[in-house]
């Protein structure tokens, strides 16, 4: 089914260069327009500001004139792009060639959903874009005009600003040009060095000083798009990668201190309870999470219902019992279901009415657990989900050796 990931990549990495005419956003939209016009794509999925409001939404559009209102670099992430793509292809492949222009974390979520058999990618062209980060949704909604000004500054400077959401400040996957995937995943250790990629086409602008864009294709689909765009100027990727690497290094440093900080903050059951005790069990975090795709969540089901007698007993054991029940079970349980695929997109925290730092906790735990499986979610379509595969000779250290094993080993 998936032929795209198997494409061989040329040895020397090069990209196509495009100079920005006037406005960065306009240039990017121009690329999409061209692809729609020459029928390479039938439709594109892009963020757009809803008319007469300050809010953004995903729009699937066929009519290229509608692109004028689109915004490829929105200041906030409203609906996670992976989720948007999921809703399009959930019931089966849409026979339109759709180009989806999304942030890297959204692309990665889409790839995770693809592995989970939710998103179908056969006719979808994933186009990723260098991501300057996103502002906290609530702050933006409270003061959209000022937030937007702020965001423009961030886009121009291209660094990880403190106004951004905490998970954006520590994000290392903001650009699929300099993504660390190839160095850290299992894929890299395999003898075959072909690029197992997430996106088909990447649009980079970090390092272009707002004057240049750099486009790279990593699959045949992406190469096809690039060809149809008829860009003539080639450039080596070294310089562009270096620009991204600089930002990545500082993000990496932030990530380390971030992990440490959160480990301390939520270490121990008491601290963990305190960190989550504002939770009102609305399950918004689960609803907006791109990876939580189940139609009927386990934690919404009847399975956790009990008789009044049981509740009273539970209360009497401790003197009092907090309602709604099982909020910790919900968060820990959800974590066990999805954290290996957590792409740290921050959608959960944006949607939390109580501003519980869900995304930060999940991102920290995700980072640690993913490391132990050497798994970077969504960067490689061909690497299976950690819990769907295993090797016979891994994690031997977690087994507690018993005497008979020892003696057997001795004999051997």
């Amino acid at each position: 089914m998936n032929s795209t990931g198997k494409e061989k990549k040329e040895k020397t990495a090069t990209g196509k260069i495009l100079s920005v005419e006037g406005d960065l956003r306009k240039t990017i939209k121009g690329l999409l327009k061209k692809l729609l016009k020459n029928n390479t794509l039938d439709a594109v999925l892009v963020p757009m500001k809803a008319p007469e409001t300050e809010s953004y939404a995903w729009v699937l559009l066929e009519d290229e004139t509608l692109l004028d209102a689109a915004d490829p670099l929105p200041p906030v992430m409203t609906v996670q792009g992976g989720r948007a793509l999921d809703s399009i292809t959930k019931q089966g492949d849409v026979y339109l060639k759709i180009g989806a222009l999304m942030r890297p974390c959204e692309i990665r979520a889409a790839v995770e959903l693809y592995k989970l058999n939710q998103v179908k990618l056969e006719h979808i062209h994933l186009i990723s874009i260098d991501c300057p980060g996103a502002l906290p949704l609530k702050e933006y909604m409270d003061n959209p005009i000022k937030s937007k000004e702020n965001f423009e500054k961030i886009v121009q400077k291209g660094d990880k600003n403190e106004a951004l959401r905490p998970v954006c400040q520590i994000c290392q996957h903001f650009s699929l040009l300099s993504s660390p995937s190839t160095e850290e995943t299992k894929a890299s250790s395999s003898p075959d060095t072909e690029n197992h990629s997430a996106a088909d086409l990447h649009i980079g602008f970090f390092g272009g000083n707002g004057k240049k864009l750099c486009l790279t294709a990593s699959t045949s689909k992406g190469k096809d798009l690039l060809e149809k765009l008829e860009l003539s100027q080639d450039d080596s990727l070294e310089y562009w990668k270096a620009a991204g690497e600089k930002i990545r290094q500082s993000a990496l440093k932030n990530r380390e201190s971030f992990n440490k900080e959160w480990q301390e903050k939520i270490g121990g059951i008491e601290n963990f309870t305190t960190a989550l005790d504002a939770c009102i069990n609305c399950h918004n975090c689960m609803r907006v999470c791109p990876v939580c795709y189940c139609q009927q969540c386990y934690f919404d089901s009847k399975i956790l219902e009990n008789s009044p007698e049981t509740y009273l007993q539970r209360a009497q054991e401790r003197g009092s019992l907090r309602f709604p029940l099982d909020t910790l079970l919900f968060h820990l349980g959800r974590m066990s279901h999805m954290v290996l695929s957590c792409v740290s997109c921050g959608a959960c925290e944006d949607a939390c009415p109580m501003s519980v730092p869900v995304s930060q906790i999940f991102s920290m735990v995700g980072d640690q657990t993913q490391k132990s499986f050497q798994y970077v979610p969504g960067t490689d379509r061909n690497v299976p989900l950690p819990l769907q595969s295993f090797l016979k000779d891994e994690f031997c250290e977690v087994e507690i050796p018993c005497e008979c094993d020892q003696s057997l080993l001795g004999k051997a």
Partner: protein
Amino acid sequence: MAKALKINKNTEEGLLQLLEFLLDSEKVEGIFSLKKLNKNGNIAYSLITNKDELKGAVPLDPHMPVNAGKILSHFTLAEKTKRPVAAVLRPCELRAFVELIKRAQGSLENILLISLSCGGVFPIDTMNNGDAKKRSSSYAESLKKAENSPDVRKTCQSCDNFLPQLADMTVLTVGKKDADKECIIYLNTKQGENFAKDAPGNTISAEIESSETEKLKSKRKENKEKLFKDFEKTGNGISGFSRVFAACLGCHGCGEACPICYCTLCDFDSKTCEYKPESYESELEHKGGLKIPPGTLFYHLGRMSHMAVSCVACGMCSDVCPVNIPVADVFTKVGAALQDVFQYSPGKDIEEPVPSGTFKEEEFKEVGEH
């Protein structure tokens, strides 16, 4: 004249004393009340069975982390409670509980309902921010004067249904000038009187409705009309309506928080509401573009058709909306219109059937005959 219990303590302490008495005398096994969780200032609805745990209880705290009607329904869903339990809840929460019972989602039996004349609650996200103390002292002042506190939610400021119906006991807070010295708890039912028997305090007879409550009621009615009018200015017609909900993420948090929306699997989360691939193709063909995920207005209009007639105006939907959509404004407005048409007031009478589940042969005769 109704009977009432007069306790010479401030209102919250008086109520706590009564609750303690109920636990002590083993008249109830447990008490549902808001309770402080820790130093963060977060509170949660809790089932308290130990007298010592009552120290952290804040039954009158002006916050509504979850609609308590939903909690009581969850508590009694499997079966009615065999051992008596008391619950302190606000009038809209009580109405929600009654509406849920009408839908076979719980049972009133063996539950002592203690409600209050309600001055409204603060928005949920202010629960753990620093100036809660300052706000609550100004809130107490407004309560004494039977005025709207400016800090309470918009929905509460325009709620004229703040005197509980069906409660066994009602704590007087609105217009209680000497709330610092005296606590009045009305005993509205036989059950209430039985439970309060031998409780510390004097029994007096008094009327809950006063010129003070009337004053607040008319003020809030005025606010409500204004709220609905304001909505008409911005949210009317298909373009206005779609603008109001343009920011909607489709998280369905409003439905999840809504006490009336009790379905385990919402119709709008089911496969029936997913778009088929060919629907996307045909919609694109004539529109040129489509919001993804689609079906925002369908969800809100549909949910409205399912529950708005029972809307108790608790405002939880607006509270949990991550993008500040005034969901409650829309739903209370439509709810009021529907309740007017069907002459129904949600949560008032436990015997009265829900309008959507019943009909009369002799009604709406003009419909369909034109």
